[in-house]
């Protein structure tokens, strides 16, 4: 619909702008008065946290790129120059490298929160799928970023991961050559990885924008998993959730700062402080911790193509989770059996992460296979079956009832017609 926007903004200059480009109205609508379920717990802060961390990564990354040289003969030294000569370069670099770990930590918690409270179920399927796309893009970005310091693990990690594509029948090795820009990891690989590492975060911003738009169409899920029914169920986003998210962001920054300032190499690998050497393979090639579960799945199958398919399948299965889960109830709070399987799934993911960090021998082979089996069993068998077999607990009537109950405040008239069985 064409035509000027009727703006409520008082300031005449801002009103003039808002009439023609209603950005102020939009922010007011989407982040000011936006009706948000009143019962969020702190797990809901991780979405805002992820957004903040994306900004931190881009800001530090831009300044790092100003001082970095993407050339095989100079990359390692240029990173050391950042650490030693650039003003606060060590802070930029450590904030960026630890920031990647923090970003994944946040996003993984965000994803598990969505899984637990059923945030992927109708009508939020597309919202969930966009989230999985963001995670995939993050993995690609992080992997290419890890190559840039051009240490031993950068080089050999790039070799291993790009060679995964050689498992594809017929065209595999041609694809690898295209990815590498040659027949082995070398300067063209470093150049294109640097270019893509700079590009992808902005693609992520685009998908995050769609993710947020989709969220604001469906509205947020909440810990009870029931729909918002009356205005009493919601609070305006500002100031209630701006301030609550701020608490989460501050607390998170305490943890982040502890790593950056006191243990900057905690997540790192000693081998990556050795300059890349194509003639010497490290004793063990391990990816960063956030990719370890997938690495474990890759190695759980004694077949290259099989392993690669399983690894990509582990992410692909996430795309169809909204249709694999047949339970009509969203929140696992009201699913007495599913909660236990969910817990088992978290344990499987942690075990897979540990398996990924160890050589595939002895007990680790078995654990890796058990973990992999459960990972897929959980999504492909348990989720569809349990939704049909399980008897969920009775759902509360509305969001506002249990919230007001718990707080001990007076009940609004007519809001508590039926007693609650489970809060």
């Amino acid at each position: 619909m064409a035509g000027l926007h009727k703006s409520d903004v008082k300031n005449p200059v801002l009103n003039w702008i808002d009439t023609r480009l209603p950005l102020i109205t939009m922010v007011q609508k989407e982040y000011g008065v936006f009706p948000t379920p009143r019962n969020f717990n702190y797990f809901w802060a991780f979405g805002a946290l992820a957004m903040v961390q994306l900004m931190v990564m881009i800001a530090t990354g831009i300044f790092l790129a100003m001082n970095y040289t993407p050339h095989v003969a100079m990359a390692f030294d240029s990173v050391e120059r950042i650490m030693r000569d650039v003003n606060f370069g060590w802070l930029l670099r450590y904030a960026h490298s630890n920031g990647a770990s923090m970003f994944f930590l946040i996003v993984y918690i965000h994803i598990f929160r969505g899984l637990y409270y059923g945030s992927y179920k109708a009508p939020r399927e597309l919202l969930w799928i966009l989230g999985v796309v963001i995670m995939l893009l993050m993995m690609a970005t992080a992997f290419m970023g890890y190559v840039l310091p051009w240490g031993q693990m950068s080089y050999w990690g790039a070799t291993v991961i790009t060679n995964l594509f050689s498992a594809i029948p017929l065209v595999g090795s041609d694809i690898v050559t295209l990815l590498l820009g040659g027949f082995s990891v070398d300067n063209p690989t470093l150049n294109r990885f640097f270019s893509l590492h700079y590009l992808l975060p902005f693609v992520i911003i685009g998908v995050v924008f769609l993710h947020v738009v989709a969220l604001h169409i469906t509205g947020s899920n909440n810990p009870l998993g029931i729909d918002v029914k009356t205005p009493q169920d919601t609070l305006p986003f500002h100031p209630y959730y701006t301030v609550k998210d701020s608490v989460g962001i501050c607390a998170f920054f305490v943890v982040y700062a502890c790593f950056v300032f006191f243990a900057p190499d905690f997540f790192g690998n000693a081998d990556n402080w050795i300059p890349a050497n194509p003639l010497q393979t490290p004793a063990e090639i391990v990816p960063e911790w956030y990719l370890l579960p997938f690495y474990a799945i890759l190695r759980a199958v004694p077949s290259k193509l099989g392993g690669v398919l399983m690894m990509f399948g582990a992410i692909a299965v996430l795309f169809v989770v909204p249709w694999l889960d047949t339970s009509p109830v969203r929140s696992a709070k009201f699913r007495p059996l599913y909660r236990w399987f969910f817990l088992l799934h978290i344990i499987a993911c942690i075990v897979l992460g540990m398996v990924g960090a160890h050589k595939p021998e002895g007990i680790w082979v078995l654990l890796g296979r058990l973990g992999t089996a459960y990972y897929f069993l959980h999504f492909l068998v348990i989720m569809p079956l349990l939704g049909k077999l399980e008897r969920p607990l009775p759902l509360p009537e509305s969001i506002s009832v249990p919230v007001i109950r718990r707080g001990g405040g007076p009940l609004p008239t007519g809001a508590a017609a039926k007693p609650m069985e489970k809060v």
Partner: protein
Amino acid sequence: MRAPKIAALLGVLVSLAVAAPAMAEQEPLAAQKWSFSGIFGTFDRASAQRGFLVYQNVCSNCHSLKQGYYRNLEGIGLTEEQIKGFAAQKSAATIGDDGQPATRPATPSDHFVSPFPNEKAARAGNNGALPPDLSVITKAREGGADYIFALMTGYADPPPDVKMGDGMNYNKAFLGHQIAMPRPLQDDGVDYTDGTKATTEQEARDVVTFLEYMSNPEMEQRKRTGVKVVLFLVLLTGVTYAVKRQVWSDVH
């Protein structure tokens, strides 16, 4: 809610217990007490200066330290004049006025001059082995400072059942126990001027302190800043939480 949490904890503990034996494959490193560990850690200047002497008299004959600058020595307490004087004894490569390769006295802004012009020369001078660059050595080895200390003090006579390779030396800390580097530190191998007894262990401790400094010259500034930043953030979290309680007081 409680039962799943306890079960989660158990799950983690069980997996850790399973992990423990596999991690114990290699001989565990003895954890040393270092002046630079902990969030308030600083470099023991006297130890780092003695370590610099060890590096200078022993390590630098074969190992480069090419990321380091002579001016970095200010961080272990050397004066500008001392550094100038020390650097001037080294000759840095340059191009002479006649366009031919030449040398000039190094200055504090120069990188540490490497003992060999290139990798081939280094290998040729070391029985085919390449002495690694020491710029970030304490970060580039699993176990860090503790490992380097264990390596420096880990030389011993090989057990009778071990067949040593040609020109190799037995070292308890080294993976595979055969290392090309001959034992670098001996008792009284270095003349300490401050009265400290130059035992192998003392020399190792000092040189590790120096190398840890060269690996992380920013460490003291980093930790000092960190203490302030974390204190500020904790305070900010507290204030924000108080504001949150205030804002939410009409909801709960």
